[in-house]
């Protein structure tokens, strides 16, 4: 039973219980934060990239690519122009186009955007890893005044199939006038996707035309009121839409079709590849995540500084201990190794505790995060990239602990077998 060096380390660490525990907690929390931010960053990025899948092109009036993506997919901001229905309808018959889903935006319901579209929306729009939309309850809209609501709309406002809703003209806080004369009936609720679809109210294109029959230029035509039961007498075929999602027969033709649309004569159109523009957008948003990562790296540095401070401040109290070890035959090198072992042990234990903490935390908040923010955080242990981070933390601890270890080395050279203070 030769007493191993780590036994000495363990006993010594145990002896300085409270300081050690506090240091350990500081390291564990900083590791939790670092990995948590890194994980959230990756998950947010993949949630973001998975907002729309299976769509090859988005077409709208000519503006910026990011702007088109923002208003058509994320429902952020408004289109500066819309597109005439004839242009969009013509694209539907293009030989390379497999399907086309028009989008007509501009109305809202209690803060949620209303999307005028066709039943093809439910057949072709995919999210995540090419997952089609599913109905949690009910079915797609059929009649003019039918509506389908996203999961979050249903959850927030307590809607189920059969509920009556009233749409408002315009979007956001300026949704002043209501289309109160033409109420809608909820026919279906979509399953949660973690995308802006959850926050949408989907109606047919004809419905958009119908509620605006007695409107012109953004306000009600004075004296004209067309009750809901008479709208069928009018021509409800769409005149203009905001954008369209396009799926192609063969993905290989995407650049050719895009160029064709972008260079076509007549009404100026813009076709974008959603994946490419999503990446572009993420690069803008990504600055924030990199700042977050830098902040959490600093927190780790603070944790390690705490480790070094604890060790250094304990050193003067341990000079006797080191002198005794020296008399027993420990070389200054042994003393150096003893101190290094101690901080690496603390760093490794801190990392392990931090990972456990993160696991418990992510298991706890994952459902809430998904429900409230649509960010999918998968509780998991550690993956390879996180192991690299952890190794980095331990390496940094190793590097930082050279300071106390070197001081201990100097002490043991100067003190020898007796403490001279």
């Amino acid at each position, binding site marked *: 039973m030769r007493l191993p060096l780590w036994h000495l380390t363990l006993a010594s660490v145990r002896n300085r219980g409270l300081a050690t525990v506090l240091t350990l907690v500081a390291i564990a929390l900083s590791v939790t934060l670092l990995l948590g931010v890194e994980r959230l960053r990756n998950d947010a990025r993949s949630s973001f990239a998975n907002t729309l899948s299976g769509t090859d092109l988005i077409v709208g009036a000519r503006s910026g690519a990011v702007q088109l993506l923002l208003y058509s997919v994320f429902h952020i901001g408004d289109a500066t122009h819309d597109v005439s229905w004839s242009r969009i309808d013509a694209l539907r018959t293009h030989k390379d186009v497999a399907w086309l889903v028009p989008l007509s935006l501009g109305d809202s319901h209690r803060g949620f955007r209303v999307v005028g579209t066709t039943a093809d929306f439910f057949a072709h729009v995919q999210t995540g890893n090419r997952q089609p939309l599913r109905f949690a309850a009910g079915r797609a809209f059929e009649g003019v005044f039918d509506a389908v609501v996203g999961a979050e709309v249903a959850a927030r406002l307590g809607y189920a199939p059969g509920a009556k809703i009233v749409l408002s003209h315009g979007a956001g806080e300026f949704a002043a006038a209501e289309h109160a004369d033409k109420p809608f009936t909820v026919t279906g609720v979509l399953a949660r996707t973690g995308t802006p679809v959850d926050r949408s109210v989907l109606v047919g294109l004809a419905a958009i035309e119908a509620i605006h029959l007695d409107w012109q230029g953004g306000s009600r035509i004075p004296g004209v009121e067309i009750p809901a039961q008479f709208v069928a007498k009018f021509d409800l075929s769409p005149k203009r839409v905001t954008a369209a999602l396009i799926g192609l027969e063969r993905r290989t033709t995407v650049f050719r079709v895009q160029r064709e649309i972008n260079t076509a004569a007549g009404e100026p159109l813009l076709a974008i590849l959603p994946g490419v523009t999503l990446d572009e957008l993420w690069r803008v948003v990504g600055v924030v995540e990199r700042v977050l990562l830098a902040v959490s790296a600093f927190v780790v540095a603070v944790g390690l500084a705490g480790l070094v401070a604890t060790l250094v401040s304990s050193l003067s109290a341990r000079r006797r201990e080191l002198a005794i070890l020296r008399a027993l035959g420990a070389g200054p090198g042994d003393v150096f190794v003893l101190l290094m072992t101690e901080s690496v042990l603390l760093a490794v234990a801190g990392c392990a505790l931090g990972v456990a903490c993160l696991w418990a935390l992510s298991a706890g908040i994952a459902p809430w995060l998904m429900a409230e923010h649509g960010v999918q955080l998968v509780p998991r242990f550690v993956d390879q990239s996180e192991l690299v981070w952890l190794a980095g933390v331990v390496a940094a601890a190793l590097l930082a602990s050279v300071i106390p270890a070197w001081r201990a080395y100097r002490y043991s050279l100067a003190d020898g*077998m007796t403490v001279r203070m």
Partner: protein
Amino acid sequence: MVAASRTVSDAAVALRGLRFYWPGAKQACVDIAEFTLAAGERLFLHGPSGSGKTTLLSLIGGVLRADAGSLRVLGTELAALSGPRRDRFRADHIGFIFQQFNLIPYLSAADNIALPCRFSPLRAQRAGDIGAAVARLAGHLDLPSELLARPAAELSVGQQQRVAAARALIGAPALVVADEPTSALDAARQDAFLDLLLGECAAAGASLLFVSHDLRLAGRFDRCVALSDFNAAAEATA
């Protein structure tokens, strides 16, 4: 191996023309023309504080390196050894007992006694079954076995000194160096401790270099010398 090349006639410690200066000091702290501790001899070295005795013991232990002269311990010229070799030599062949604060406070008494075996495979080998060796030494030094599992910090000063003696003796080092080991003890316990220490050293055949300022103890030893008699530098630093 150092131990194997040793002959019986070798002195435990032999100094000749030894001189040591603390860094930056103009005067030597230790300046000894000649001093010998014979093998198996139990020597009382009288030295008040400031006479350079701690420095001398650090030199003999190989923690400090002499600036001039010859320093042979158990037949080995320490000046010729590198730092790590001197550390290993100290671990293998010398047992130390200090005035107080001898023990690692958070280790058990048993772990404290066994500690030299951690740094010296040779002493571990000589001790054989370390658990049995600890128990045997503890028995000789009147340390109850239930005390051995307790942290050293919980022991009385007298018990701590006996644990320190057991630690100095485990693995049968050829030289035991004691620096004022009894000054923290009262008179009755001083005698009892000295009995145990002298008896154990005799039983193990170890040479004992016992340093103290308390001349009342000197009569129990083979020989008594005053450090100031042969350390030419003593008065300058006192």
